[in-house]
């Protein structure tokens, strides 16, 4: 016998508000906007309740609505950001485009193929991510946390592909360097 999946809007806030909030705030790095997104998620879900046919669980259905709102948030933010290439990556590479001694990668002595087991990694990563500029954060989150492909990200954020790849490159350079300084114990 199939279980008919139904929505239980009375339980939404109790069951999912914190989950959706944690999911959102880590992505957009703005507590007030994250609260709004969670609230909007419930309101949109209620309006769209007749489109729920139980293919996904109620939880995943709410997550999907929330994800769309996060992408909308980035779209709106991006339209107000100047997209100018600044030659900031020079600190990582010297005049012949080789690593500078100061910023070159050092071995972390961890197994890079294994998942991280410490919560500390995530709090450092979060602090490092916050140091990226808004547009770098947006592309990093959309690409690596939301797993959206670059063509779609460029479309949503109105970026040229070459600019997008520069942003991804820089985000990775900054994050790697920041984690090496703050998380890894190089001894």
């Amino acid at each position, binding site marked *: 016998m199939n279980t008919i999946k139904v929505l239980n809007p009375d339980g939404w806030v109790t069951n999912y508000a914190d989950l959706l909030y*944690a999911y959102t705030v*880590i992505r957009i790095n703005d507590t007030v906007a994250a609260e709004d997104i969670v609230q909007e998620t419930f309101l949109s879900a209620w309006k769209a309740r007749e489109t729920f046919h139980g293919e996904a669980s109620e939880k995943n259905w709410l997550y999907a609505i929330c994800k769309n709102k996060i992408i909308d948030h980035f779209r709106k933010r991006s339209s107000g950001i100047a997209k100018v290439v600044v030659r900031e990556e020079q600190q990582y*590479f010297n005049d012949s485009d*080789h690593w500078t001694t100061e910023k070159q*990668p050092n071995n972390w002595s961890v197994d890079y193929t294994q998942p991280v087991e410490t919560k500390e990694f*995530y709090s450092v990563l*979060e602090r490092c991510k916050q140091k990226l500029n808004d547009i770098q954060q947006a592309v990093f989150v959309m690409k*690596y946390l939301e797993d959206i492909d670059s063509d779609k990200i460029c479309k949503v954020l109105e970026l040229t592909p070459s600019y997008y790849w520069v942003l991804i490159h820089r985000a990775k350079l900054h994050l790697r360097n920041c984690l090496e300084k703050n998380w890894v114990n190089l001894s």
Partner: protein
Amino acid sequence: MKHLILSCKKATYYISLREEGKLSVTQRLQLRAHLALCSLCKLFQQQTAFITKNAIHTHINSNALLSQEKKDEMGKLVKDIIAGE
């Protein structure tokens, strides 16, 4: 021969492009050759892959919670909307 040799700056840039299969055959070969010889860029590749693979689990490891006040407010709002239909 010189044009075949990638700089570290370019090699690290190509690493992200390769994730989405956006390199030409020549670029792929250039990158592979560079990574075989350059231990620094190899480290960059391993470490950034490590970061991005783990990053997807960030929210599970987050302690962010809504205030009870905010949750009450949302609960009331949702309740009102349901009642209004």
